[in-house]
């Protein structure tokens, strides 16, 4: 399972988005987003306009991977939580099951205690959504449009991307 790419269906995206919106409001956060452990952004909510979420997703995954490497060296399974404190903004990062990372960016309108509490609750909800998603990936194939995409794609289509 580890080496299988993530497939996100519309209904699951909506569930994740709803939970992130709820979390972002309850935690008084600026931005909340969910990232695949491989660095792919799954969903993001809040004041994302001025934030490069793609790069943040990649760096978050790198950060978690490096921290995981340190944990192993110390004989720990993992460090499930990271916190970076800045002058204006802070980042709270927590693991969601085996596949994803929850990132919350907040400023002085919120507090670490509140964010930590809300993150903990949301991690449980998001873990369930992802567990169902992975189960679905194992049992069902692509959607109709996905199947069409993959069967009809040609080398010329790929070539055109670079033209």
């Amino acid at each position: 399972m580890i080496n299988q790419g993530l497939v996100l269906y519309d209904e699951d995206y909506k569930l994740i988005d709803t939970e992130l919106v709820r979390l972002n409001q309850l935690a008084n956060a600026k931005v909340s987003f969910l990232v695949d452990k491989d660095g792919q952004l799954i969903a993001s909510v809040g004041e994302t306009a001025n934030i490069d979420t793609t790069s943040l997703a990649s760096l978050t995954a790198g950060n978690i991977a490096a921290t995981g490497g340190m944990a192993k060296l110390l004989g720990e399974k993992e460090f499930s939580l990271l916190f970076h404190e800045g002058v204006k903004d802070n980042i709270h990062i927590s693991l969601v099951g085996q596949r994803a990372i929850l990132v919350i960016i907040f400023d002085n309108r919120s507090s670490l205690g509140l964010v930590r509490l809300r993150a903990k609750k949301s991690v449980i909800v998001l873990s369930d959504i992802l567990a169902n998603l992975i189960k679905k990936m194992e049992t069902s194939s692509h959607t109709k449009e996905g199947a069409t995409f993959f069967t009809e794609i040609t080398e010329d289509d790929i070539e055109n991307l670079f033209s």
Partner: protein
Amino acid sequence: MSFINYSAREISCKIVYYGPGLCGKTTNLHYIYNKVNPDSKGKMISLATKTERTLFFDFLPLALGSIKGFKVRFHLYTVPGQIFYDASRKLILRGIDGVIFVADSQVERTEANIESLENLSKNLKEQGYELENLPYIIQYNKRDLPNVVPLDEMERILNPRKVPSYEAVAPKGTGVFETLKEVAKMVILELKKRS
């Protein structure tokens, strides 16, 4: 691995540039970054030392266009080439969809190329992959230098399986896009096969 998002109608793939220290992995990314239309690229992130040696990774997100209504994104990564950054290299290989091995064509780097290729194979195995099963190509870089190993000799040493290979001069862009295009093609066709 790839991320297929039906909600956003997007497909994202991770491509890693691997190779010995100073072989030109970051230079490949810089060239791509400078040549690609601003609308098609994100910021290039380089986690490097003060002397511009890659410390953890370089990252360049590309969104070159759509195929059949799906936006296709490629996330390009490089690994640090220096031997003692092996722990970091392993981490970057997680979730890989395709790999470009950048070989340094200079005679004195032959051993470094061999070591790095063996290291790639070993590190992939640790992450649960086999190089033989991944979209994989070789780029012979620095072909403009005077002391290069002849191409057929490099092929014999580094490419016994005869995977696609390209000659390159990364700072001038020779072979850079050809290499990327080939591996991108292989990655998408692999996704097609798996679907």
